[in-house]
């Protein structure tokens, strides 16, 4: 009974998981599509972690791509310079990102919306300058590559071994998404939903907003950093190129398109944008121009994001029928 209830309640998510687990077998051999799917998963997790910060804790961080890159560099550099095994380096990337994230958050968390956004975005802009400056360790604009990857028997975790790597990414992503899901549905997560919907009420319950925000922000930075290290290991390279404003905007748009605070909206947003971006690749430089135009058009037409689409349609339809009814009634009464 309980099992069937859980199954029914999460039918959509479980179905999606099943499809994602089986798809590679159906696609066997198609390396290109497999790697796109891997990218979708990676960005889906990053966007969801980011959403944890913006959509749930209301911490308008614009630093998550910086955390992602910090994780990437940490992963690569600990392997290269400290000889740490690559499996251990990936969570270390998360730890580094979380530590730096919390250091930034400590003075900023009490601030409002755009202020946090701009402080953290400032960190993003500054990061590339520092990477370029310390070229002795970071190899400047060329970035790092050729470091040791995760190896399991004959399989290497790399974009040139797509089938195996897909399942590694799939496993890590499911685990992290589950953690995100648990955080959202924990007391803390529910408290945040309470704060969002009725601040005075939640405050009266004695929610320690600052502490909770710090915890959630730390978790979210950790996941972003870990994914950065995973990404770096997967593609075998990390460079300041990833700090391009366009990358930052793309991931931010993924989570906003999915709908803020509507897990798993950010994952859906990531799939849509990644696939779209891949489809537009032949346009070369015009790709992001078109993407930007699409985002603007979609937001003007559908301001609540993709996850709210059914709800938006329903409430719109209800309003229209209600208004029609009112008009009909008043015509009737006036004709009498």
């Amino acid at each position: 009974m309980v099992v069937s209830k859980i199954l029914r309640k999460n039918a959509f998510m479980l179905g999606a998981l099943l499809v994602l687990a089986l798809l590679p077998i159906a696609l066997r051999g198609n390396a290109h599509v497999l790697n796109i799917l891997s990218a979708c998963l990676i960005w889906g997790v990053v966007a969801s972690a980011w959403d944890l910060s913006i959509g749930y804790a209301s911490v308008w961080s614009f630093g998550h791509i910086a955390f992602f890159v910090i994780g990437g560099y940490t992963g690569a550099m600990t392997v290269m310079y400290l000889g740490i095994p690559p499996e251990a380096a990936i969570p270390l990337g998360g730890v580094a990102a979380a530590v730096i994230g919390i250091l930034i958050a400590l003075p900023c968390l009490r601030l409002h919306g755009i202020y946090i956004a701009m402080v953290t975005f400032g960190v993003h802009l500054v990061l590339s300058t520092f990477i370029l400056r310390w070229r002795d360790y970071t190899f400047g604009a060329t970035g790092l590559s050729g470091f040791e990857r995760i190896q399991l028997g004959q399989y290497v975790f790399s974009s040139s071994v797509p089938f195996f790597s897909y399942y590694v990414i799939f496993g890590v992503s499911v685990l992290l998404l589950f953690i995100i899901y648990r955080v959202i549905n924990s007391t803390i997560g529910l408290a945040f939903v309470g704060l969002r919907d009725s601040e005075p009420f939640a405050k009266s319950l004695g929610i320690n907003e600052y502490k909770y925000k710090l915890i959630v922000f730390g978790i979210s930075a950790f996941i972003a950093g870990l994914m950065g290290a995973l990404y770096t290991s997967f593609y075998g390279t990390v460079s300041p190129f990833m700090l391009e404003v366009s990358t930052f905007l793309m991931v931010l748009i993924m989570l906003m398109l999915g709908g803020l605070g509507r897990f798993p909206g950010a994952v859906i947003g990531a799939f849509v944008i990644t696939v779209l971006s891949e489809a537009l690749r032949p346009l070369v430089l015009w790709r992001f121009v078109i993407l930007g135009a699409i985002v603007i058009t979609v937001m003007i037409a559908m301001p609540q994001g993709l996850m709210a689409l059914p709800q938006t349609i329903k409430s719109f339809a209800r309003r229209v029928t209600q208004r029609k009814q009112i008009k009909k009634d008043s015509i009737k009464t006036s004709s009498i």
Partner: protein
Amino acid sequence: MAAEQAVNLVIVGITLGAVYAVMALGLSFIYGITKIFNYAHGAFFTWGAYFAWMLSSGYLHLPYPAVVVITVVIMFFFGFGYEKAFMYPLRRFAGWDITAIIVTLGSALLFDNLALALFGTRAKRMPYLVEGNFVVGGFTITRHEVVTLIIGLAIMVLLILFLGKVRQGMAMKGVAQDQTGARIVGIPINKIFSYTFAIAAALAGVSAILLAPKILVYPTVGWVVFIKAFVVMVFGGVGSIKGTAIAAFILAMVEAFVTFYLGGIWGTPIFILVLIIMLTIRPKGLFGTW
């Protein structure tokens, strides 16, 4: 020699301050009046610089006063059209403030990459407004710096007069202070929004013309100026021209000295540091009014 160096740094700081002030005023205008935070404001700067470049050394080689005037006019209509096309349609829905964030970010993506697609990654060089130097008692000042300072100060005076004395300016202030109040007295909000973006874009264009000759022009050049302008806006207080000017001069001066003694890469970090400190001590800024 140390004295001469110090004086030179002060001069650099002052002219840089004038540019930051002009840029920050535009950002502050939009944020104060429409409550929209325009993440595409850096892209406005970038496009102002590219328009100026196309009109001058890029293609048309027009005389400089014409470049300034035409760029400002183009940017004015650019801002106006941006508001009408991208911001106005959002306002039919409740909760449009969040949507506006995404749309301004999406616009930044669009404009940045449009510049990349059209002009390539190769940085463009802009000529100075006027070539040559003034030599005053042993100190050399470039004419460009003098002109920058004059234009910057003139814009601030004009804006103070506009907001304080001109009816449309007062109406903008009214919208900033109480939007419903403004509607009640018959101020056309939609028009005010459009003109606010238009003026802010024109200001971004001016600061691009003034700053671009000293840095190079490339597709994401606006972001760094944007974040510095934001720090200036916060430091000075949203809506206070006087505060913005003072903040711009202080921060630019600090930047000039820090860059000289510690190296160029510390320019932006010092702004972020100041921002964090300022926000912890006095979030309203020096003279915040709106």
